[in-house]
């Protein structure tokens, strides 16, 4: 069964540095998402992406965050200048298309900001 894959599984970065989290969605999926889960808290929506543009973003997704689909297969989340509070598990998800299609999640990337 096809899966959403995320790399790396764990990223350790100094505060203030840029970080890029990578995701390969399922190949025929059209909608892409990023979520995050701070330790001990709920999974929170960050952004959704369709047709090469952001469809919706949350209050968390400020100017420090950006997403890109650079080559038709990868879907990346960039944090320009990381803060301690960005430490979290980041999940990528994708869904097939029209209608009420469920989202398929990747294993997540654990981001640790020092």
């Amino acid at each position: 069964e096809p899966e959403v894959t995320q790399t790396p599984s764990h990223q350790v970065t100094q505060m203030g540095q840029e970080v890029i989290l990578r995701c390969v969605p399922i190949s025929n999926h059209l909608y892409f998402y990023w979520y995050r889960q701070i330790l001990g808290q709920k999974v929170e929506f960050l952004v959704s992406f369709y047709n090469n543009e952001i469809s919706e973003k949350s209050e968390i997704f400020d100017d420090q965050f950006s997403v890109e689909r650079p080559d038709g297969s990868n879907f990346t989340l960039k944090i320009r200048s990381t803060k301690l509070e960005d430490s979290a598990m980041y999940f990528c998800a994708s869904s097939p298309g029209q209608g009420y299609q469920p989202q398929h999640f990747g294993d997540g990337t654990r981001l640790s900001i020092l």
Partner: protein
Amino acid sequence: AQRVTQPEKLLSVFKGAPVELKCNYSYSGSPELFWYVQYSRQRLQLLLRHISRESIKGFTADLNKGETSFHLKKPFAQEEDSAMYYCALSRITGANSKLTFGKGITLSVRP
């Protein structure tokens, strides 16, 4: 605003006991409700969705619009059901809707 409440953090039962994982939601429109499960060291997986009205691994969940609830139930718990369970909600207005999650509940099934 969308909100999902899972009032309990942990439910511990013996094998063969009934299970009910509670979920309440708040949303002004017509939502779609889901249960996601995360087994140890695995990814979030869709368990079931209210629109399908199906039973997966013996679990069922009925949407009660009057009580704004979507409780997950299983009559006889198995050890392999031990996992983290998340209730989630999305708008029914179309595709590409974000999921709003509850905090999740850990189900522990003892032998």
